């Protein structure tokens, strides 16, 4: 039987498109954002669910908070790890809060009402945003706090990740809250590369996340958020109401995982990923084996 050219094109097209939109059956579709820590924690959620006998489909490395949220609302994914502070400011566009519990309750209520998404119990780890500089420079300029940095900014060059320049809970918010922060130069880099700029001497201050391993390996100092601009960023699983109704054990299984994720634990994940070049799935499997058996 000969296949016409049109038919073969149609088959190729279908082959490319169909596997991606195949129904999940009752598999839980676990996703993550596109940086190591989030991928590892998502892999831990996935591994824990699989250990409990729940089938899982993975869609890791999604490009941004907006993409992940849109995909959740559309129902293309069921579950991914999100930060409470990010949810509050970046997604809900509300004003920052300092109390981690109040923040969590606010975000949980809003997501349930607006998006039919449920925030499960959060972890202790607080992966906040921050500004970092080398210990040497910090000592020389006597910079320890964000207030001091706000005033000293005109003499400083900033290396930032792209989101930092636009997010309400980043540079624009810092400027409004602390005043100042008129950096002499602001340049953006892909996630992880802003530290290189610091190392090369192309920048004086770099944007950071408080669980980044580079803080330990590059001997950096995190400026203290003395006026508490940044809200807590506790990580928690966000899951679709429909998926939770279909598989209520999700809450119980992940409820056993969340308390285990603390600041030191997560920093060690980042170290394994960034420095030892370990595979996120391997890191997750190792952790689950050690702590959930």
């Amino acid at each position: 039987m000969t296949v016409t050219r049109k038919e073969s094109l149609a088959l190729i097209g279908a082959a490319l498109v169909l596997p991606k939109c195949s129904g999940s059956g009752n598999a839980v579709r676990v996703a993550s954002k596109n940086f190591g820590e989030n991928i590892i924690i998502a892999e831990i959620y996935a591994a824990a669910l699989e250990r409990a006998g729940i089938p899982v489909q993975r869609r890791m490395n999604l490009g941004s908070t907006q993409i992940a949220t849109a995909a959740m609302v559309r129902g293309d994914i069921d579950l991914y790890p999100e930060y409470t502070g990010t949810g509050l400011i970046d997604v809900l566009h509300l004003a920052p809060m300092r109390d981690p519990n109040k923040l969590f309750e606010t975000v949980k209520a809003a997501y349930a009402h607006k998006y039919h998404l449920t925030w499960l119990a959060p972890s202790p780890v607080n992966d906040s945003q921050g500004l970092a500089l080398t210990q040497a420079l910090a000592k020389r300029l006597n910079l320890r706090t964000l207030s001091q940095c706000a005033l000293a900014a005109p003499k400083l060059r900033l290396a930032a990740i792209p989101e930092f320049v636009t997010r309400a809970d980043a540079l624009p918010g810092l400027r409004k809250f602390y005043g100042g922060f008129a950096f002499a130069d602001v340049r953006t880099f892909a996630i992880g590369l802003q530290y290189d700029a610091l190392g090369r001497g192309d920048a004086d201050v770099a944007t950071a996340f408080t669980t980044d391993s580079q803080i330990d390996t590059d001997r950096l100092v995190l400026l203290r958020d003395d006026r508490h601009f940044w809200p807590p960023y506790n990580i928690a699983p966000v899951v679709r109401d429909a998926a939770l109704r279909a598989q209520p054990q999700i809450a119980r299984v992940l409820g056993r995982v969340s308390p285990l994720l603390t600041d030191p634990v997560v920093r060690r994940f980042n170290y394994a990923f960034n420095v030892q070049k370990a595979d996120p799935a391997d890191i997750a499997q190792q952790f689950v084996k050690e702590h959930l058996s």
Partner: protein
Amino acid sequence: MSYLTAHAGQIAQLTLQHLGLVLGGLAVAIAIAAPFGILAARVPRAGTPIFSVTGILYVIPSLALLAVAVQYLGLGPAPVIFVLAAYAQFILVRNIATALANVPAAQLDAARGLGMSPSQQFWRVELPQAAPVLIGGLRLATVALIAIATLGGYVGAGGLGDDIFLGLQRKYIDQTLAGSIPAAALAVIVDALFRLLERSSRARLE
């Protein structure tokens, strides 16, 4: 290179996915660009607004456009193909308009005068005469799309972008190379193939 050799099979699959995204984006791009390019060639005044729109599409940051596309098209290849098609318009519409506008007027006059219908004029004279320039435009567009298709990873559509960016994040050069070498190879091969096509179609005309 250890990462590449260790994950060779996976990378081959990612490369095919990447190529699939590019071809999908190209097909949709041509389907949209052709009527607008033809319109801009036939009605010079229509050119200005058409080119402004394609220029704007080109300037919108690709990630932002992708996030919007996901809202309507979900995850997977669809939003990537949408973004690829949107970007290619900038190159293709102007290319098609220019190619058609530069068909020798004498041949068009002769075609019309001899009794070819408008569609016969298009398929038998305009398109063959415009072929070298059109193929050149396709070459540029395809190579550009190979680069932009690295976005695929961001929405779970596969492709070579994942390895490139994750490798960059943690300075794992081997992983970055595992993504960028196949992508670069694709670009070089595609470019060479198109140049061959261009050359042979041009030879038939001169």
